[in-house]
């Protein structure tokens, strides 16, 4: 096991900069998730750690060793690929044993390690099968098994669950969580799915355009997003982002637009806000019935979605769609007007220019 350190890592493909001066420390034994939309540089970053992609500038260290020029085979890492990348001409046992054989591990030990991993993943009865005879979930398990038998310093996962169907994905997700809990190996996990990122990561790095926007524990990215992008990316349904005017009245900040007027308590007020801002409110922070509370948004309901554990209500406010997550037992009629009370403690204010968090 080892920590992984990236220092000012830049990757350019011709004129295109995929990763820009990335600096990040991945702690020993921790599960770190790189998350972001496609093309944000997360997979490129992972591939640079793996040694499959050359580093244009900067250093990557695994443990104390700078590995910039170390070929993948000598980095003592294991990787699970999106399409599993199982060797089609080898059976499951040999797929898992291949890395050990290359390291000239004694035969008895190979058998022991492979069986141990197969037991752990519940694929012992498949050891003699070829990959094409397996289902997607089983293939994924073999790919994970191939990674864990070698007991590497670092696990790298490149969107390992994206080829599985929804149900299996949730199941494999919890299995990966258990596995990491058991093995405590440093893990870097790439995904575009923020739910996976939230559930799996000890820390998550939200990336956009080759730059890490926020690198923090999942709850922190949710509660205190660094900027508008992180705020919109983390959480489902996404945070409502509403343009608003900011003004100061009696020491309290007032955010207003055609559809609402929200006065912040003094404790959360700030004098230095620019006059036009973006108000960010999560759907679940709009769940208050009281029409006379400090901040309410009045909305005409256009669509409702009953999810069982919550009721999603959609409506338009000045051409901006708003979604609120309400108590599922509340009855809301389409085309009716409802008042949503904004949770003043958890609302966010962003700068429309720089998109940075102001409040």
């Amino acid at each position, binding site marked *: 096991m080892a920590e992984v350190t990236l220092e000012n890592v830049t990757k350019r493909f011709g004129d295109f900069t995929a990763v820009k001066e990335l600096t990040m420390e991945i702690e020993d034994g921790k599960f770190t998730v790189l998350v972001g939309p496609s093309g944000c540089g997360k997979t490129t970053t992972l591939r640079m750690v*793996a*040694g*499959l992609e050359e580093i244009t500038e900067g250093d990557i260290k695994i443990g104390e060793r700078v590995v910039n020029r170390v*070929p*993948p*085979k000598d*980095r003592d*890492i*294991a*990787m699970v*690929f*999106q*399409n599993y*990348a*199982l*060797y*089609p*001409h080898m059976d499951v046992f040999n797929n898992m044993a*291949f*890395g050990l054989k*290359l*390291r000239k591990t004694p035969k008895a030990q190979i058998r022991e390690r492979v069986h141990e991993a197969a037991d752990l993943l519940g694929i012992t009865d498949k050891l003699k099968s070829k990959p094409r005879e397996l289902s997607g979930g089983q293939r994924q398990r073999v790919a994970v098994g*191939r990674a864990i038998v*070698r007991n590497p310093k670092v696990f790298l996962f490149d969107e390992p669950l994206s080829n599985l169907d929804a149900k299996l994905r949730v199941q494999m997700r919890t299995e990966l969580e258990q596995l990491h809990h058991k093995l405590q190996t440093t893990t870097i996990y790439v995904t575009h799915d923020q739910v996976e990122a939230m559930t799996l990561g000890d820390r998550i790095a939200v990336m956009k355009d080759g730059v890490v926007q926020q690198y923090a524990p999942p709850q922190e990215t949710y509660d205190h997003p660094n900027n508008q992008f992180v705020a919109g990316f983390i959480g489902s349904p996404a945070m409502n982002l509403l343009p608003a005017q900011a003004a100061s009245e009696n020491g309290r900040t007032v955010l207003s637009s055609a559809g609402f007027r929200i006065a912040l308590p003094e404790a959360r007020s700030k004098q230095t806000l620019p006059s036009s801002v973006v108000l960010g409110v999560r759907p679940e922070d709009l769940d208050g019935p009281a029409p006379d509370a400090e901040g309410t948004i009045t909305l005409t309901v256009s669509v409702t979605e009953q999810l069982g554990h919550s009721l999603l209500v959609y409506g338009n406010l000045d051409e901006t769609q708003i979604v609120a997550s309400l108590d599922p037992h509340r009855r809301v009629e389409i085309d009716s007007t409802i008042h949503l009370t904004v949770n003043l403690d958890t609302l966010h204010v962003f700068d429309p220019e720089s998109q940075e968090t102001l409040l």
Partner: protein
Amino acid sequence: MGDHRARPGRLKRIAHSVGLKLIRDPAGAVVRFLERGAPGRLLLRLIRSLVRWFRSVRWRSWSFVAPALLLIGFFLVYPTVVTIARSFFGRGIDLFGPNVEFVGLTNWKYVFTSPIMLTALRNNALWAVLFTGCTVGFGLVLAVMLDRVKYEKFVKSIIFIPAAISGVGVAVIWKFVYAFRPAHIDQIGILNAIVVALGGQPVGWLLERPWVNNILLIVVGIWMWTGFCMVILSAAYKNIPKPLLEAARIDGANEWRVFRNIILPLLAPTAAVVATTMVVQVLKIFDIIYVMTNGNFDTEVIANRMYKEAFLFNNYGRSSAIAVVLLILVVPFMIMNIRRFAKQEGGR
């Protein structure tokens, strides 16, 4: 209809004269008439089975296959049968003319015992080993290595060009390469020019029997066909998902192990098809030999001998026997290729 209604009286008269039943159920009436006697019943059975045949799906499927079967029968099966038969007959241009006599196994004895045919068989074996091994081997190495070259397409096109030249053209080119002039004259062949420039004596490359000249001829074949093998193997190589190779590298494989343990096993089915194609190519190798040495100086091959016996010596009997030998040699490789192809298609 209008006609009938206009003159119902006439219709009635006809109906009575021929029989109402014949009008209402003409087929039934005929059948009942025929069933009265034994020959009629026989005729009826014949008609019925014919009708069934014409109605059956089998007839329709045969009708689709028939043109192909006729062509294959006429252009493939018939000549093959005639060639096999002709191999038991003697000299002459006619197939089975009055001057052509039955000679039993004489031609076959010639095929397997005459010194020239033994040389030809040996040379074909030499070709089969060297030519197939080198074309497939070089093709494989080039396919994998050129994948990493920046100007891959350009280089591959250059290497493929010889496969696009006619065999006679290739042979003429290489005849110049191997050209030999006495020591006191300027060498026009590049090989001897180099030898002389380095202070050596010019060598009659194609006269150095039996190994040098045969191997140099095989080199010509390799030069011509390596590009073809490379292109097919390269396509197969590009079909291997790249993460597979990356997974192996991360698993700890160096480039040799990646090649040996991943690429090679995955290319093996394609390589086998290419190899059998090359063996078939060897068995019918003719143009290079015919143009460069015409089989002299111990460079004879089976196909060239077949040509000579038929068209120079008018000995169709011998030529046919040689042709049948070629056919028999080629069959196992054809079966291998067809089987593998069927397996591949079946896997889809």
